[in-house]
């Protein structure tokens, strides 16, 4: 019987099937390969010590390890497109973005676009929520790839050392916003403007289109959030209903748009009203960039085309 089976098996067909599998494997590898990863890592404006860390805990070796996964999400999953890369200034800069979508995918996409697509590549430092250090695993990973808590002292130090800092002035008001409020900028904090004035850093509005739809939160379960010590607890049509499956973000098409850098003049000790006026300017510039991006994207959030 075994003999018969062997006789009847079409080995040629089998061979070609296996070679096809190999080909898939090859493509899969290609999808994870960041082009010129080593070259880009070496050109980052960071000073490393003998242990391979910079003074804020950024660790390029960790980035090298997680780069394939991040790159998969960046290029294949969210199919990120960028525009206005020529607007990115050299040296110190304050990138101001719109926040949404429950987890900081927007920060990740901006960070990756500056690392993968910008020329020269930049290591952007994201200011994260103060509760992030209490989250196991996430806290250390974030620190290794350049994030830190959004403390004014941190931001000031980074700007003084000519780093690029990514700030979401909406804070938790932005990241926790419900699906119905997407792309509507919430109240902006004003701390970033004082820091920009103090360090004379240009402000670059960054509109991230697409990430605000990845976790369509319909309800914020505040009582549970309070119990967990988190700033909000989103309920989406899939989470927590589908359990871990509900954690998979919707594969929306993401665009990252860099606006023209804005230079502000003035004293960082100005009264709040004057600072608020300047902040309003940034907010308007960012909203304009968002509206433009939404218009270009069209109505289908998954393909980025009109219906």
């Amino acid at each position, binding site marked *: 019987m075994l003999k018969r089976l062997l006789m009847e098996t079409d080995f040629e067909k089998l061979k070609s099937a296996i070679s096809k599998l190999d080909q898939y494997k090859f493509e899969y590898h290609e999808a994870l390969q960041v082009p010129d990863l080593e070259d880009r890592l070496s050109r980052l404006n960071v000073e490393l*010590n003998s242990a391979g860390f910079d003074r804020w*805990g950024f*660790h390029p070796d960790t980035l090298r390890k997680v780069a394939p996964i991040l790159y998969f999400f960046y290029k294949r999953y969210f199919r990120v497109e960028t525009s206005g890369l020529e607007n990115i200034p050299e040296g110190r800069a304050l990138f101001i973005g719109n926040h949404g979508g429950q987890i900081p995918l927007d920060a990740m996409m901006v960070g990756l676009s500056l690392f993968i697509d910008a020329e020269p590549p930049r290591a952007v430092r994201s200011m994260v929520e103060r509760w992030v250090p209490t989250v196991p695993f996430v806290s250390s990973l974030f620190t290794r790839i350049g994030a830190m808590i959004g403390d004014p002292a941190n931001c000031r130090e980074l700007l003084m050392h000519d780093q690029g800092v990514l700030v979401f002035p909406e804070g938790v008001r932005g990241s926790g916003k419900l699906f119905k409020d997407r792309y509507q900028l919430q109240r902006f904090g004003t701390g970033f403007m004082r820091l920009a004035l103090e360090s004379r850093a240009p402000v670059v509005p960054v509109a991230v289109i697409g990430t605000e739809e990845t976790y369509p939160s319909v309800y914020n379960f505040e009582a549970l959030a309070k119990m967990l010590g988190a700033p909000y607890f989103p309920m989406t049509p899939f989470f927590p209903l589908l359990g871990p499956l509900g954690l998979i973000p919707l594969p929306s098409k993401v665009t990252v748009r860099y606006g023209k850098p804005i230079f502000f003049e003035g004293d960082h000790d100005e009264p709040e009203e004057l600072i608020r006026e300047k902040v309003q300017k940034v907010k308007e510039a960012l909203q304009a960039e968002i509206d433009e991006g939404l218009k270009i994207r069209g109505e289908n959030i998954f393909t980025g085309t009109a219906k």
Partner: protein
Amino acid sequence: MRILITGASSAIARLVAGALSPKYELVGVDPRPAPISSHFPGEFMIADYHSRKLDEVFKKYTFDAVMHLGRIRESQRISAQYRFQMNVIGTQKLLDLCKQSGVKNLIVLSTYHVYGAHRMNSLQLTEESPLRASQSFPELVDAVELDHSATTFMWKHRDIRTTILRPVNVIGKHVRNTICSMLRSGMCPKIIGFDPLMQFIDEKDLARALILSLENPVSGIFNVAGEGVIAYSHAIRHAQAMTIPIPPLVSAGFVRLLDQFSHLGFPPYLMEYFRYPTIVNDDAFRKAFGYQPKVKTLQSIKNLGPLPETRNLLPSHSGEESV
């Protein structure tokens, strides 16, 4: 010039004394006996800092400078009460004696622990950052008090040049603090999911920093760090130690339990320093004193061999005030 060095039996004091000895006349004081192997270059006396013996030392000699390196470190083996007596009452007494006897120069070795490990800490703590240690861990109140009384002394007596140094984790061949013992013993408790950044300063670099602050006419409070930051897990790996994973929610209890069965000597309240980063910025010290650490962090971690000698620990009577 005559200098009084407290904590004279410690590894750092011996390094400092070794470097100062031909140039200055030294007197050493320590509650512990002098280490057998190395000779203190000068007169050595056994005395608790809060005891009467310290008055005698100041009666016998007049000092130009005092280096207070004798802070009793946090350790499971020494009672918090004794630490408080030595670090708070003892330091107060020492400062009073400095004022009365006309000391011109005072150097106090504090610690970065005073900032406390806290999730609200910014990633680069400057000398102005709040001292949160005693807020979260009452056991550390003596360290904060020591720092505080030295700072008050500095502002009150501007004619006495006072320099307070807050070094990060000190490591080196001769150092016997908790972090060194852990890395040496090959068993390092690590809270699952938390891998904070840490800073280390080599014993030689700290000794150099202390001598710099003795010889430069600058006063103030300064953080002192080594080359840079390193993640805790990397430090463990480079020390070729084993990680003992600790569940995050019960970390304190777990460490206490662990301590019962092994001889880790690890105070549970220090566990928070293995959860949240406590990173200091030492730019001010580098600028004011032209200090540059010479030993690379990885090098000093790798240099941690077994202790070259067994040392006498503090007397067991700990806790009673000797008069």
